[in-house]
């Protein structure tokens, strides 16, 4: 049986001590690690070979890690981004997650916790890799990488979170996805979303893909359990 290749991580960290200790420890934990100390080095590394996950510091000598995350989102949509930063203020966290980062870890951190977050992020990405892009869902064609939906010639932008939720449901088309699973997979641990948060997102997604959002036929609510994208949605008119 062939061995699963070690996932590759690009560590973007300008502090030499933290960078070298962290690369060593990640390498000891079965990851292939490449270490970049600046935005410029990160761009070069990414152009040489894509990575499964980028662990990005926000404050870099030649710019912001947020800029890098945006670039990765556009140019390497398969790469998961996890921020690892000293900036823990709420608006920084929100901004980082809005850029589509899988997680936001504030320094100092427990290595075990970081590993857990990295593994969760990679698992989510693997899960979603099985979903075609673009994908027809109900009345709309969803372009996950470009974060948009196309319906009757009208383009509607999607937030990274909406795209993640739609992708999770699409990946398990025909199956009921439990609310707790949605919360675990789409939201970060620190965000403490409630079932109401999920319901609000579903309402908005229905407006994008359903013929009649009041009588949903594509994204069904399974009362008390969760949501399901039906396996054979009605053909668009």
């Amino acid at each position, binding site marked *: 049986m062939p061995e699963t290749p070690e996932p590759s991580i690009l560590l973007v960290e300008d502090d030499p001590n933290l960078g070298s200790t962290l690369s060593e420890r990640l390498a000891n934990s079965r990851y292939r690690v490449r270490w970049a100390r600046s935005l410029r080095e990160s761009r070069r590394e990414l152009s040489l070979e894509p990575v499964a996950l980028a662990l990005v510091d926000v404050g870099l000598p030649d710019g912001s890690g947020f800029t890098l995350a945006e670039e990765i989102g556009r140019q390497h949509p398969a790469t998961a981004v996890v921020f690892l930063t000293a900036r823990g203020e709420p608006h920084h*966290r929100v901004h980082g997650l809005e850029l589509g980062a899988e997680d936001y870890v504030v320094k*100092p*951190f427990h290595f075990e916790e970081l590993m857990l977050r990295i593994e969760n992020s990679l698992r989510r990405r693997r899960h979603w890799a099985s979903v075609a892009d673009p994908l027809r869902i109900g009345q709309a064609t969803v372009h996950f990488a470009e974060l948009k939906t196309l319906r009757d010639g009208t383009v509607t932008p999607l937030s990274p979170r909406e795209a993640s939720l739609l992708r999770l449901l699409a990946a398990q088309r025909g199956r009921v996805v439990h609310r707790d699973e949605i919360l675990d997979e789409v939201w970060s641990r620190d965000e*403490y979303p*409630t079932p*109401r948060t999920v319901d609000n997102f579903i309402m908005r997604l229905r407006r994008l893909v359903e013929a009649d959002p009041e009588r949903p036929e594509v994204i069904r609510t399974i009362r008390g359990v969760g949501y399901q994208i039906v396996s054979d949605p009605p053909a668009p008119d």
Partner: protein
Amino acid sequence: MLSGMNQNSGFFSGTTQVTARRLMVLQAAWLVFLFGLGIWWVSLMLEQAGRIATLEQAAGVAPGAAQEQWMRTERMLFWEGGTFFGALILSLILLGGLHWRDSRRAQSLRNFFTSVTHELRTPLASLRLEAEGLSELVPPGAPGRTLIDRMLEDSARLESQVERALELARVEGGGEVLTQPVDVGSLVADFLRTWHPTIQRTVQIENLAGHLGVLASPAGLQTILRNLLENSVRHTEATPLVIRLRTDTVGDRVQLTVADNGAPRTLPPRNLGALFARGDTSRGAGVGLYLTAQLMRRMGGEACFQPGPTGFETRLLFRSEDLHA
């Protein structure tokens, strides 16, 4: 020398942006009041002087003398009024300048404080990572392991202090506290799963927090829980230390109670929650309870500290939220 500072002095004198705005409004109102008073006084005196001149004329005083008397009074009033308004404007300019200088100094200190504590996070992360790496190499009981454990403990204590200092600077600087509906039971359970006392103590935690919806900032609530639990560990001698967490519905609000079985704090109850207020021990910087009270206020709730003969109790009162509505 944090302990030497009182609530009204220096850097963290509570001059948050909101307080500063209120001060500005009060100053403007005071200015309007003083000007109004001055104008009223001048007009009243002029009116009185006019009446006196009329009475003098009626009493048979020569018109020239009455006119001269009236002119003298008018000159006196203009000079006195002018001096009054001049002094008033000068003192206001002076006060405004001093206030502006003080605000700028406080702001620079806050920025410096924030950037220093912020800069500490990266070396602290590195230190912890290195110590954790060492602890994996040196098994428990081996020579040197105790030193590594102490290093990890000290690193955790440093982290805790840095976090408090940063949060204090943020809250005092008017930083946002973003609230959202939160399942308090889940948050407490999640927090307790990862929380470890920063000094080696046997801590027994009884968590009876139910799944009730509250309006809170998850990060803020975590900071509050960390402060309260660390305070219990730091200030009580009971062994084992028992910390109980419980939720109750109080009217239309949700109360989270955090209580321990330690000896009561030495701080007078009226000072609990005041900035830099400390008991007669040298432990702590007097920031934890202040932060708790401030964060609760910013989340639309309130904190109540209750030292008792059998321990210390903190009641956190939140606005309740329906998680499923």
